[in-house]
């Protein structure tokens, strides 16, 4: 949940990148880290296994400048995507302000995408949240691969509510900042709504 500090005039928000194993959540953060001005970012932390699979989370603090005299900071987290790390995913979702669902566009990963969306809904519900009322965007990653599924079919299956969604190729950065911008915008609008 966001933290508004009038003393240091800072707003801190938490965004979580969710999705099935190997869909590109960590790659999104790595690209953001590599392309962000050093003054605007903190150290990126990856708690990963020896084979570089996310074990607990990746973390990237990002400052996006000032809004109405308040420094706006976003803390980006990824969850471990592999099915058996569900307990860790629940912990990381706690206090979330916005969620990015990263889908793997490969046809053979469609079932894993669907399973992960269902898992996200369940885990949000456990803390009294639901996707419909949470700042939420969808990213269709790996669009460059030859076995990418039909985009309309992916939208129909993974984004029936029609939230903001983006095609991406996170390894080269396509769609990465568009996705981040959309979720940050949604989080800030949500805060505005809550303050009203």
């Amino acid at each position, binding site marked *: *949940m*966001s*933290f*508004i*500090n*009038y*003393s*240091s005039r800072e*707003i*801190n928000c*938490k965004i979580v990148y969710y999705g099935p194993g190997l869909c590109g959540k960590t790659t999104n953060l790595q690209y953001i880290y590599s*392309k*962000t*001005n050093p003054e*605007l970012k*903190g*150290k990126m*932390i990856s*708690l990963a296994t020896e084979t570089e699979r996310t074990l*607990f*989370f990746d*973390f990237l*603090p990002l400052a*996006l*400048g000032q*809004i*109405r*005299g*308040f420094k*706006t900071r976003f*803390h980006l987290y990824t969850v471990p995507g592999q099915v058996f790390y569900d*307990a*860790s995913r*629940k*912990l*990381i979702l*706690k*206090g979330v302000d916005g969620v990015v669902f990263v889908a793997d566009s490969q046809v053979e990963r469609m079932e894993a995408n669907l399973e992960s969306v269902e898992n996200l809904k369940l885990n949000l519900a456990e*803390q*009294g*949240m639901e996707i419909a009322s949470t700042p939420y965007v969808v990213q269709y990653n790996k669009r460059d691969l030859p076995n990418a599924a039909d985009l309309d079919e992916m939208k129909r299956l993974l984004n029936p509510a029609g939230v903001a969604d983006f095609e991406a190729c996170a390894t080269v950065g396509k769609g990465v*900042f568009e996705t981040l*911008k959309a979720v*940050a*915008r949604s989080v*800030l*609008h949500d*805060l*505005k709504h*809550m*303050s*009203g």
Partner: protein
Amino acid sequence: MHDTQLVMYDEDYRKILAVIQRLVRDANAKGIFVVDRNGQLIGEAGEMRGVDTTSLASLTAGCIAATGGLAKLVGEDDFPVHFHQGQRDNLHITLVSNRIILVVIFDDRSSLGLVRLRVKKAGAELAKIFEEILKKTERGNPQGGGSPFAEITDDDIDNLFSL
């Protein structure tokens, strides 16, 4: 609202700072950090300059979250006190009011017993302060300044993305 948003004003910050600055002296600690359970740094005191406090806050929250998960597995509500012993420095982590994490870093100028004793008192004081902060958050801004978000526009948001 699914969780309580934390809104801290200058007067709250000064109260927190006073408690942890005193704790640094009373416990002979090297550094003290107060972290929100969601991983946001709230305040720090002591001589640990140059530490990456953002990472420290995030990892502390992760540590508390992971051991909290373990606690539930074995039928406990939480493990509210953690102690990590290093070769030079040690870490004493306490969960206060189920919401705030108090991190004390100390070396051989102090002892675990002393830190435990002093943290107990400071933790109770911090619990009171945060109870007030949460009450204030629920009541709205007492200073009448309004939320910084009340007048936000799409342009304000777009201007953030001049990366």
